């Protein structure tokens, strides 16, 4: 017990730094003329004020210890070429991530689980800025996080609005140039693929399905979801007539009973879904595909069901997704 009660000097130092440094930074930022120090010293110019969902926040201009505490946020920070020092525990879903993603968070401190932040573990990681999204961080949590370090919570128009979300993150983390570069590259690739495979795109009707909230259900990505946004709004792939285009709950997808799969996917000629990097599918997705109702669909009979690995959270993963779509789906369909 004695050992348990005694912290290491390093941990104490880190904790003290975690609390004191942000307080000092905030105090510095709040001081009059902090941003316009005339002596040219670095201290005065080290912070910027950015907008976030819960108001303006003063953050370091060039943060070095970023904590990303929402589910998609670490990957969005990864796309900005910045490391993270803390993220939630992804052990439960780790098989769904690429080797690069797994390596990216390998050294990051685990600070709780989805929706349940461990504040002490987060303070122990000594971040100089914390970022997350408003779909998982409420105002009370934001207030408590702000006691640890300046906290920027981004929202976008909806959950799948990775364009706005990543832009806001890039601004908050001083990485706008990297974001702009990724955006330009993505747009060029998107336009190139759309032009090259215009015939295939126009000739087919598309759907992106996945597992449902419960056994006996399946889900459809809405245009407000991250992948749905890419499919419908960015790539201009036409969704089937039976697919809902909106939902009130803001989740970006809709979960429906399997009995409705026939009506929902009627007329769909290409079905897209998710698969793990090793080519396997999550058991719950495989259950949907193996169900007798799914097997009666046109896409099951023609075999035009494709699993894509990339999980779309930002411009880089969106470009990866388009590359995968091209090699796994558009090229074979064009032959």
């Amino acid at each position, binding site marked *: 017990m004695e050992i348990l*009660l005694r912290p290491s000097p390093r941990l104490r130092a880190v904790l003290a730094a975690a609390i004191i440094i942000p307080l000092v930074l905030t105090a510095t930022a709040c001081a009059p003329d902090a941003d316009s120090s005339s002596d040219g010293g670095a201290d005065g110019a080290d912070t910027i004020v950015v907008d976030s969902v819960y108001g303006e926040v003063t953050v370091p201009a060039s943060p070095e210890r970023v904590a990303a505490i929402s589910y998609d946020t670490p990957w969005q920070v990864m796309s900005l070429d910045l490391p993270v020092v803390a993220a939630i525990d992804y052990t439960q879903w780790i098989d769904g991530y690429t080797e690069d993603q797994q390596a990216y968070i390998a050294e990051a401190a685990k600070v709780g689980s989805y929706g349940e932040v461990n504040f002490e573990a987060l303070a122990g990681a000594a971040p100089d800025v914390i970022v997350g999204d408003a*779909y998982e961080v409420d105002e009370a949590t934001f207030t408590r996080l702000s006691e640890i370090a300046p906290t920027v919570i981004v929202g976008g128009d909806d959950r799948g609005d990775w364009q706005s979300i990543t832009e806001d993150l890039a601004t908050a983390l001083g990485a706008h140039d990297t974001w702009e570069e990724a955006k330009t590259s993505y747009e060029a690739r998107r336009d190139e693929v759309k032009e090259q495979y215009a015939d295939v795109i126009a000739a087919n009707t598309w759907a992106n399905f996945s597992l449902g909230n419960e056994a006996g259900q399946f889900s459809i990505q809405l245009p407000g979801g991250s992948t749905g946004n890419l499919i419908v709004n960015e790539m201009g792939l036409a969704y089937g007539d039976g697919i809902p285009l909106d939902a009130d709950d803001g989740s970006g997808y809709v979960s429906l009973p399997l009995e409705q799969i026939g009506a929902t996917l009627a007329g769909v000629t290409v079905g897209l879904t998710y698969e793990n990097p090793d080519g396997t599918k999550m058991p719950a997705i495989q259950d949907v595909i193996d169900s007798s109702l799914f097997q009666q669909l046109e896409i099951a009979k023609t075999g035009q069901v494709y699993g894509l690995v990339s999980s779309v959270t930002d411009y880089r993963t969106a470009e990866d997704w388009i590359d995968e779509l091209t090699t796994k789906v558009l090229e074979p369909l064009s032959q």
Partner: protein
Amino acid sequence: MSIASVIAVPFATRRRRRIIWIASSFVLLALAIAGLSLGDAAIPVPDVFAALFGRGEAGTRLIVVGWRLPRVVLGAAIGAMLALSGALFQVITRNPLGSPDILGFSAGAYTGALLVIIGGSVSTVALTAGAVGGGIASAALVFALVAWRGAGGTRLIIVGIALTAMLGAVNTMIELAADDVVAHTAAIWGAGSLNGIDGRWMPLILITFVLGGLAVAALAPGLTLYELGEDRATSLGVRPVRLRITAMLVGVVLLAVTIAAAGPIAFVALAAPQIARRVWRSGPMPFAASAMTGAVLLMFSDLLAARLFAPTMLPTGLVTIGIGGLYLAWMLSAANRRRR
């Protein structure tokens, strides 16, 4: 027969109980110190006391006073309030299973608070009002459903279990209908947890605890006689109907305020009074001992929830469900042994 003669206990028993009180107070104190000291940032006990007295590093003070102290204090108070609520209902129903978890009052209070959340408010006052309203409505419904045949015995339990199941379905439907963020908030809160609890709940919880405790103390003599049987209690000057309604209202308010603050934490209300009865070897319901047991039970559960899989933090309610399951298994096996 006077009330004093009913509740009088021999000297040896009183001495034994005094020892148990002292021992349990030490356990409570040890759990409090552990709760203030243990965490992802382990803080030595001297630093804990320094922080409590406003000294030491700012970071340590924030963790100890800002984050851990509310959790420890509110954990103890909520555990005690749940136990008192359970004790009141177990006396009213004359059934060890007559706890608010089983009777549907917890589910009703949860429904009330859930409606407030999807209505867009998470303020202390609104959540409390919703939970108290839902709790009272469900209690009224349960007693109305059994009123025509009497509120005692197995019938009340079965009606309570049925209402709990129905309200559970209603709560799930409400969560599914809510938007993603609200549903997520409600689902985490619905597991019952002290993880997110903060100092804003301190005044309400402590005031309710003190007032509720005083109310229970005032009701206790009457409830002790009531346990002897309604006719005997009436002959000794107790007014059973008024006593039942008052005790029910106090029980529901105690329960509902805890649900508003921390979500529905299962089994403490059920188990604590029975554990206290056995440990203190008390004939009548030992209300103060129940409160102490509830406080110890919840603080211990919360410590486990926070440290068992750290840095992942379990909802406290999951641990109390585990402990409650063990308690139920033990109670059933003890009942089987008695039958043989």
